[in-house]
């Protein structure tokens, strides 16, 4: 791994223990390659990947209360990054289960899929701990490239090539924008570390300042692409729709969590908000996302597209926290961001779990070939509540959470955001948020209404044999409810870092 190579001098047991989860994943990738050479089996590689991730999760658990520790110049592990990485690992585990269900129907052995999945997790792990533009870029590319592979993975699908290419081209463009932005920032500050002090002269020298601000603009647009913040959102619905459902889940959770955490880290460390123009830029992005995302989602019939548009709106809501961020209440900011992200992740995991279940059940087997159900329409959920109440309940909880209704985590998340914005007197952002959530209800509620409609499709019945699926569904119902009513359970894990 790059970090270890750079820091042989200071490599000791403490530092290893701090980045142990990332190291476990990296080591797991190497082992998985050997495993492929030794035995090619769908089941073995899936189990192996799951085991690696579980061990990493366990190793990560002890880091939740860690003091901020710098691992070379490149990485810095603190309790926030550890929390974010646990979110990443949990989403990856759920996605792994879904992927296995999706892939095992094929005759081919898809080892490379699992490798890409682990690479993606590694990229996210580097991103959330990065403390340097170089490691940020490394993580960013690792994440993007493995996602490109995954998005286009389902070759037989009609949209696979289109969405894969769309993602590849736009992702590469975004990375090059970001790289140029980083270069501009570096040219002014002369340092690539997040901890670098931005020299004061920048405020006074018009040329330097312009350069610096353009750098930030390019840098943020690169990140905004990944977060699908308007106006960098155009790829979102198409790629969400075209990618296999487990991959869409990865895009909706892991990539969003990792990118947002790194954005907050960067903005916090470098005090970008001191520049009025940056604040204005973020404000425009937030308002545009909140409105565009919600309005465009209104008439969607395809569930994945709908979730894609709603994710645009959610990133807009979350951006408010970054805009109103202030030096005094950093730990509160982190708590808000991480809580909102966990609410968002739990809701997405829940909804995708049911979507994947419906897809795998409704797929028809023609001879040896499996005809995979690609399009997942709103009408596929019709009457679900009367057939499989547990799955429907999960969807209801997830949708309510996304809409921010009490009893769910999403509401507490929204409460955090509104608190932050109220303290900062950001009334216009609040007004946009209220309008946005009002519009949002107009597409969230019909999903729930569809669940209750008269049953006419008897295609999808509960699969009695899928024990893991049932355990997952019930545990996510319980997680959603308990964390929604007693949010302290989560908040206590987001321990504040003594500065």
């Amino acid at each position, binding site marked *: 791994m790059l970090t270890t190579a750079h820091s042989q001098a200071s490599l000791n047991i403490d530092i290893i223990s701090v980045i142990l989860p990332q190291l476990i994943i990296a080591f797991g990738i190497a082992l998985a390659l050997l495993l492929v050479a030794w035995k090619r089996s769908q089941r073995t590689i899936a189990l192996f990947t799951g085991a690696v991730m579980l061990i990493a999760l366990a190793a990560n658990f002890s880091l939740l209360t860690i003091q901020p520790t710098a691992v070379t110049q490149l990485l810095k592990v603190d309790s926030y990054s550890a929390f974010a990485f646990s979110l990443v690992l949990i989403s990856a585990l759920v996605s792994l289960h879904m992927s296995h269900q999706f892939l095992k129907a094929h005759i081919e052995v898809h080892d490379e899929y699992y490798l890409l999945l682990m690479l993606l997790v590694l990229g996210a792990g580097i991103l959330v701990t990065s403390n340097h533009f170089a490691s940020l870029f490394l993580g960013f590319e690792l994440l993007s490239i493995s996602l490109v592979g995954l998005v286009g993975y389902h070759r037989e699908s009609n949209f696979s090539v289109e969405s894969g290419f769309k993602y590849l081209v736009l992702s590469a463009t975004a990375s090059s924008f970001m790289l140029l932005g980083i270069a501009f920032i570096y040219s002014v500050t002369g340092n690539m570390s997040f901890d670098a002090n931005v020299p004061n002269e920048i405020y006074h020298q018009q040329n330097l300042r312009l350069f610096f601000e353009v750098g930030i603009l390019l840098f943020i647009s690169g990140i905004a692409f990944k977060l699908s913040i308007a106006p960098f959102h155009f790829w979102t619905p198409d790629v969400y729709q075209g990618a296999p459902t487990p991959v869409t889940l990865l895009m909706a959770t892991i990539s969003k969590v990792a990118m947002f955490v790194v954005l907050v880290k960067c903005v916090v460390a470098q005090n970008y908000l001191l520049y009025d123009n940056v604040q204005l830029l973020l404000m425009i992005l937030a308002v545009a996302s909140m409105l565009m995302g919600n309005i465009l989602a209104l008439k969607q019939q395809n569930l994945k597209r709908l979730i894609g548009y709603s994710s645009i709106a959610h990133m807009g809501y979350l951006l408010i926290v970054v805009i109103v961020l202030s030096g005094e209440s950093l730990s509160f900011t982190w708590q808000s961001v991480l809580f909102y992200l966990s609410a968002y992740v739990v809701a997405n995991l829940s909804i995708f779990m049911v979507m994947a279940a419906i897809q795998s059940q409704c797929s028809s087997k023609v001879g040896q070939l499996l005809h995979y159900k690609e399009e997942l329409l709103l009408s596929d959920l019709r009457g679900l509540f*009367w057939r499989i109440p547990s799955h429907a309940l999960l969807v209801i909880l997830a949708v*309510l959470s996304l809409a921010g209704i009490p009893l769910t985590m999403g509401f507490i998340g929204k409460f955090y955001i509104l*608190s932050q914005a109220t303290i900062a007197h950001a009334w216009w952002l609040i007004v946009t948020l209220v309008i946005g959530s009002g519009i949002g209800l107009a597409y969230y*509620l019909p999903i729930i*209404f569809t669940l*209750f409609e008269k049953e006419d499709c008897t295609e999808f019945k509960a699969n009695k044999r899928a024990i893991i699926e049932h355990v997952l569904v019930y545990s996510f119902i319980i997680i959603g409810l308990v964390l929604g009513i007693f949010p302290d359970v989560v*908040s206590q894990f987001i321990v504040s870092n003594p500065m």
Partner: protein
Amino acid sequence: MTLTFIMLVLLFTGALAWFSENRWQGSAKWLALIVLALLATVFTIFVISYDQPFENLQVLTRVSWIQTFNIEYSIALDQLSIVLITLTWLLAIICVLVSWQEIKQKAGFYYFNLLATIAGIIGVFVAVDMFLFFFFWEVMLLPMTAIIAIWGHEKRHFAALKFFIFTQVSSLLMLVAIIATGYFHLLATGELSFHYLDWLALDMPLSLTQYLMLGFFIAFAVKLPSVPVHSWLPDAHTQAPTAGSVLLAGVLLKTGAYGLIRFVIFLFPQASMQFAPIAATLAVISIVYGAKMAFAQQDFKRLVAYSSISHMGFVMLALFAFNSIAFQGAIITMIAHGLSSAALFSMAGMIYLRIHSRNLTDMGGFWQSAPRMGGFALAFAGAAFGLPGLANFIGEFFSLVGVFQVMPTFAIIAALGLIGSAIYGMVLFQSSFQGTAKQEILDLSHRELLICSSLFLMLLVIGLYPNLLLNFSFGV
């Protein structure tokens, strides 16, 4: 503890009813009825045996809930909430009775939603931590929306969506006001607090409270409802099943009035005083507009729905008169309207069950075949237009007398609404029960007779002996 217990039992019974209906058909309604009657008794015994007077808020429970924001689970009772909860119990039992024959599909889940709504409404009336209040405020919406969306009439989805969006958006404004007040408490005292009693002790400048008050006011005005944010109500009331309409008109609208009293007028007295002319204007417009629109309706339930807007306008007008007589009038109007609109909606449900139409043009001459039903319909229409001897008359009379002392012009215009109510009341009665007989219908069954007579009796008792309610001071 008792109140928490009651709410939990309601939820638990709902789940049990849902489960048992799948096993033994027809068990859910009996279960709901028996448990509601039992819990109402428990509540009554609890209130009577409580040793402190309820003139001021008696905090019953106060435990920490979400430590991050210093949010507490805190519930309290006073005379206002006791009266409204009593109304809730009564109408809840009526709701189960009117759904007896009407709800055949998915009955178990229906009773779960009904009981959950009632639990939420009771929560709204007792919560004194503002976060908890907001929590219940939203939670009671969900099962109510489900009742409209699943068991409603032909345009149910649209109505449910409209109902939910109106209340949700306005309540988000209230949430912002709640958070702002909480953080003002933090600035002023150094401690974040969402507790109502802490807020009462807080001295806030008028420049701030006028905005905070507005946040609360909008949320409650939507629920009340007042013109110009009333348009969800005719749709929701018309499309909901009978019990849904009864619960909406009878109790849910009252949560708006309750909020206005407790969280606007008592919490921000100065700001509300300043705002009174605007609120009173909106109220008067609601009264006249509601009456006018009711007169023009062809749909039985829609007519009653518009009359609700008119009646709740009286409540708002009286509240913003800042006069103790008007205040008493407002509370009696709330109770009276709860009973009379519930009665009219039940009547609409009974007719719908017989002729499968809500349209007044399909009705006519029912008196010949169903004289007992006609008698009750006449009495309830009379109650709605303020016939002396029935509860609504006392409420509207007190409101107008009180308002007249402060704002005579408003009182005079509002009195026009009474004329309007007489017109639409008679239109309603004449077009359904008089004229040439279009159809023959069955007269009231024993169950329906019980519903009608108990509601009528309550209206009559309050109308003849208003001291039953006037004896209470309701915190003024």
